[in-house]
């Protein structure tokens, strides 16, 4: 736990003025979920992703997605070995503990689908042969808002492979000032030491999964799900799987807050990040969710 708060502080030094986003990102990883960071270029998405990898002490790969990227470029490819006369699987960058998929919406939908499938199954199938991905395996994808030209929005039905979607937004004024005056982020990044030792992350994940969820809280989650289903503002309500995701994220958040049980406030804290993309809301349409939270009574 101590190391976790240390990691949190480190990240706060790296990405200035975004404590909430960092907390969300951390709880997403502790809840074993993949993270989608959506925002304009240059607000620190990549820095946050790098920082997370570095602090958590994970092996990581970074892939810059472009429109000419092919699925094989990510997953890997079978190459014929002349000396052995056999095909040998050449692992792609996805075979790592933390994959940074930068600007995922620049890649073609085929590439996106391939990656999303790997995320879901935690394995790669090439030519009828499955290759398991290492554990833990996270994807932190970043994307620019879909309205930008030359992008392929992620297919909505597959968006729920990501546990959370967060956006960073512009930093507050004083944070931006110290960003301008302070050290170069790249230098800071390279100087960062892993804080979590090997095997510590799975332990934290187990701890998070053991955080108590009382019947009253489960009821609250249920009424939140119900509220999204009956609401015409949303195309389709949240699925039962979304409910589970919401609980997992809330558990991790509660643990980060230092509690052994989940409070309704924990659910509220992660709700818009977990539910926003599943309900097909644009990143800036979060007010709908806020008003929903305001109107669902806590049992």
């Amino acid at each position: 736990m101590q190391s976790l708060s240390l990691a949190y502080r480190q990240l706060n030094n790296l990405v200035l003025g975004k404590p909430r986003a960092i907390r969300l990102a951390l709880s997403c990883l502790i809840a074993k979920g993949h993270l989608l960071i959506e925002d304009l270029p240059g607000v620190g998405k990549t820095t946050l992703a790098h920082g997370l990898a570095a602090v958590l002490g994970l092996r990581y790969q970074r892939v810059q997605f472009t429109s000419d990227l092919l699925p094989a470029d990510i997953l890997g490819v079978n190459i014929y070995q002349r000396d052995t006369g056999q095909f040998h699987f050449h692992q792609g960058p996805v075979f790592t503990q933390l994959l940074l998929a930068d600007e995922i919406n620049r890649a073609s939908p085929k590439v996106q689908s391939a990656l999303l499938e790997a995320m879901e199954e935690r394995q790669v199938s090439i030519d009828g042969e499955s290759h398991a991905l290492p554990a833990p395996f996270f994807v932190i994808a970043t994307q620019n808002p879909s309205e930008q030209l030359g992008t392929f929005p992620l297919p909505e039905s597959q968006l729920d492979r990501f546990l959370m979607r967060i956006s960073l937004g512009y930093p507050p004024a004083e944070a931006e000032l110290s960003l301008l005056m302070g050290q170069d982020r790249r230098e800071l990044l390279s100087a960062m030491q892993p804080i979590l030792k090997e095997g510590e992350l799975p332990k934290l994940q187990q701890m998070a999964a053991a955080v108590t969820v009382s019947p009253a809280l489960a009821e609250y989650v249920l009424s939140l799900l119900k509220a999204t289903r009956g609401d015409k503002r949303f195309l389709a309500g949240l699925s039962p799987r979304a409910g589970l995701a919401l609980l997992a994220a809330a558990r991790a958040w509660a643990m980060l807050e230092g509690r052994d049980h989940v409070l309704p406030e924990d659910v509220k804290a992660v709700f818009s990040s977990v539910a926003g993309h599943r309900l097909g809301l644009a990143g800036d349409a979060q007010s709908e969710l806020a008003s929903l939270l305001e109107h669902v009574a806590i049992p």
Partner: protein
Amino acid sequence: MLPFRKRLSGWFIARLPRESTCTLNQRRIYLLPTRFGLSLIVVALAVWVGALNYAVSLAYALAFWIAALLLVAVLMAYRQLAGLTLSGARSEPVFAGDAASCRIRLSHEQALERRLCLQRADGEGDIVDCALAPAASLDVGIPQVLAWRGAHPYPDLRVWSEAPFGLIRAFAYVRLDGALLAYPMPLADRDRNDHQEGREPSAAPRPTERDEFSHLSEYQQGDTPRQIAWTVLARRDVLVSKRFAGEPAGAGLRVIAWQDYPAGVDVESRLSRLCWRVLQCERSGQSYCLLLPGARIDPRPFQKEAALSALAAYDGGQPA
């Protein structure tokens, strides 16, 4: 409503601030006997006079019991309203000229069941009857016709209860700080949407193999089976259609622009026509882009709502 009562309610309302949430308390709740209550008072008096005249002691007891019951009824009627919280809930926008349902949220913490009536304070419109379970909340809708485009304030409301005896009416006036949105009333403008005329909806452009998936939207009559998102249907049991990036490519994207009309056309009829065209495109699945001075609404999820809201809120180049 009688002019006197109208004046009285006007006086009550004028003293009230607009508020987003209001919890009724003794300063807000007024109590008056109903006609039934008055007749029971008369009965109590008659019994009392009879008791006096015929020297019947038990009849005194009856007269006083009825009187005491009326007092208890006052308290119980007051309890029906005391502690009740009213707040504005999200109301669905409508087109100007239609009746919107002004959503009100009623909630309380008390362990009693309340039976309430709501109506607009000016006495027009239907009376909404509802029962509120102990420590629960409930959304009710007050019908309200929105005559013109734009944001309308919530109507002043009167909430009352005659429960549990019908002897005493407890009532209160409430001014909630909410807004009802009215989109412009659609006005047909066939000249500018002429390409739609005479075309069957099923003739909407079929997606080709190389079209790229763009987003999902509500299923519309005439969408081809290929367009239906079957996975979504299987998983969530809702019928949605895929929209493809190739669909509007270039010529397909219809631009609905403020500048389509000569300068002489006044704002409201312009907005009404734009509104009609937006709806027309939505109906036929046509991709479009709405251009207003200072705003541009491109194809995206919930484009319809965004476009209509922009039209509703338009105020001379500085849309909200």
